[in-house]
């Protein structure tokens, strides 16, 4: 009950913020919401289940290119493209997972990193269709979403918010379900869960597919909402960012990805106002987090004060 109230409160705050904030920040908020959905997907794999992947950019890019290329080259309706992009993330996660989940630990990280690198290079190689490094800018008629004009600030925010609400509800339902407990069991003691009759390979594949659906949806929404798809979204950096958001906000917390994405977004925004050295901030934040706050903000709060936090 407490947790439902908390999440409703956060949503109300987001809606209020959209009306109060000047348009620059309201726009940032839309971006943060979409990135938070991506980070939630990452959190399901990494935070709840202990699958540390360094290749989630591939799943994000699958959604982004799945949706973006459909509306750009085939003139598909935006809503359909969003759904297909979401599925593309899930399918890509299945392909990666079938192979990568045969490994564990450090090997799993390197294999996922390499698959993502293959995806990134493939996008560059077929630059005739994908736009390569330069990418493709989606035109206004391609960005009409069931009657809403996504080039405008307000509709863009509402679509981002609806997507976020769906993802939040799904995430909350997932971690409170029986399967959510199996996820934790996988993270804590894989051998023991095998003894209890779960097949770790199948369970982890399911987890990765769910994570891929979130990431794909975020990538597809990013393409439609902000009108640009490009190779840089498939680069290593977009595998690192969701990890950073999750570590900062708190791994294995439902609101951690949103908090982490928001804080990191404004930290980078603030730092790039001071110096051009914003990557330094990302690097320093990563080092400081693993050193001093490995549980992240909400993880620490949950440990100290609010044990019921989901």
């Amino acid at each position: 009950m407490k947790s439902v109230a908390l999440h409703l409160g956060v949503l109300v705050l987001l809606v209020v913020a959209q009306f109060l904030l000047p348009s620059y920040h309201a726009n940032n908020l839309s971006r943060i919401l979409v990135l938070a959905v991506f980070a939630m997907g990452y959190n399901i794999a990494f935070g709840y289940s202990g699958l540390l992947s360094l290749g989630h950019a591939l799943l994000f890019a699958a959604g982004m290119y799945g949706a973006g290329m459909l509306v750009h080259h085939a003139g598909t309706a935006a809503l359909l493209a969003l759904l297909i992009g979401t599925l593309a993330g899930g399918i890509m996660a299945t392909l990666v997972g079938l192979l990568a989940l045969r490994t564990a630990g450090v090997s799993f990280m390197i294999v996922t990193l390499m698959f993502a690198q293959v995806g990134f290079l493939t996008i560059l190689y077929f630059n005739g269709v994908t736009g390569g490094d330069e990418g493709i800018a989606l035109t206004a008629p391609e960005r009409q979403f069931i009657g809403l004009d996504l080039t405008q600030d307000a509709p863009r925010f509402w679509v981002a918010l609806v997507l976020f609400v769906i993802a939040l509800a799904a995430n909350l339902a997932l971690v409170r379900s029986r399967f959510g407990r199996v996820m934790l069991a996988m993270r804590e003691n894989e051998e023991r869960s095998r003894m209890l009759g779960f097949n770790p390979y199948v369970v982890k594949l399911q987890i990765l597919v769910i994570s891929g659906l979130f990431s794909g949806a975020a990538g597809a929404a990013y393409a439609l909402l902000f009108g640009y798809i490009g190779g840089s979204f498939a680069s290593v950096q977009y595998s690192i960012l969701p990890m950073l958001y999750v570590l900062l906000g708190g791994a294995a917390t439902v609101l951690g990805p949103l908090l982490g994405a928001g804080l990191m977004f404004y930290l980078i925004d603030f730092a790039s106002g001071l110096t051009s050295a914003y990557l330094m901030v990302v690097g320093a934040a990563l080092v400081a987090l693993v050193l001093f706050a490995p549980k992240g903000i909400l993880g620490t709060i949950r440990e100290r004060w609010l044990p019921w936090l989901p």
Partner: protein
Amino acid sequence: MAFGPYLLLALMEGLVKAAVLALTAVGLSLVFGVMRVVNVAHGAFFMLGAVLAYTVAQYIPGPAALGWLAALVIAPMIVAAIAAAADTLVLKRLNYDPEATIVATIGLLYILEQAALSFFGPDARPVEAPFTLRLQLPWFGFSGYKLFVILAAIAILLAVWWFMTRTRAGLVMRATQVDRQTARAFGIDVDRVYAGVFALGAALAAIAAVLLVPISQSHYLMGGDPLLLSFIVVIIGGLGSLRGTVVAALIIGISDGVISMFYSPTLAKIIATAAVAMVLVFRPQGLFGARA
């Protein structure tokens, strides 16, 4: 040019690549073997070696050879000091937890790259070769310096091998690799060994970079390719096996040289990366390594 000489040229270029790659990868392999740490910042150490080589060479007056020699001594030492500091200040405090160290070295990579950009600038800059001897073959001329790079790499690799197998320090490192607890019980200061190994690994990457800069150029983003290729080499050679690493560096370096001369380099990288991912999935001990 006929196909035969063309292939010979490709092979020789590949051999130069393999030489630089072997040095870099042995550094990565050493760190992984002894410390069980996957050092994502290894490419950044490589880049730092190149960038420092340019900076040092700028400040040394006189003939180009003098500046380059000074760089060959000073750049690896600075890089080794930075690496040792990173180990003591960060990695040690994480207790070398594999996942935490990967995240931390990613952070280190960003910090080093950004520092190089801020102090060094975004331009690619050349370092003059210490000598400009040209070797005239019947079909094409080949830079004498490139041959020197191959020889120098062989000499350094032999020195590393000698150090690891014939000196007390090497023995201590191998003892730590086999069993950290027992080594500690025998009075070995494991913390110092780890700092030393991490510094040595970074210094090897820096030496490779100093050897490479007269042929290539120094740039703050140049660490990406050596990192990826070193990973590939270390994995194929079997994680932590030095001999396997050198053999794999030869295979990867030469085939990379040949493939990218005849096909698109992007395609070559796609194939190599996918192939290595498959090796990790289906043969995790590497092609040559025994079960770790």
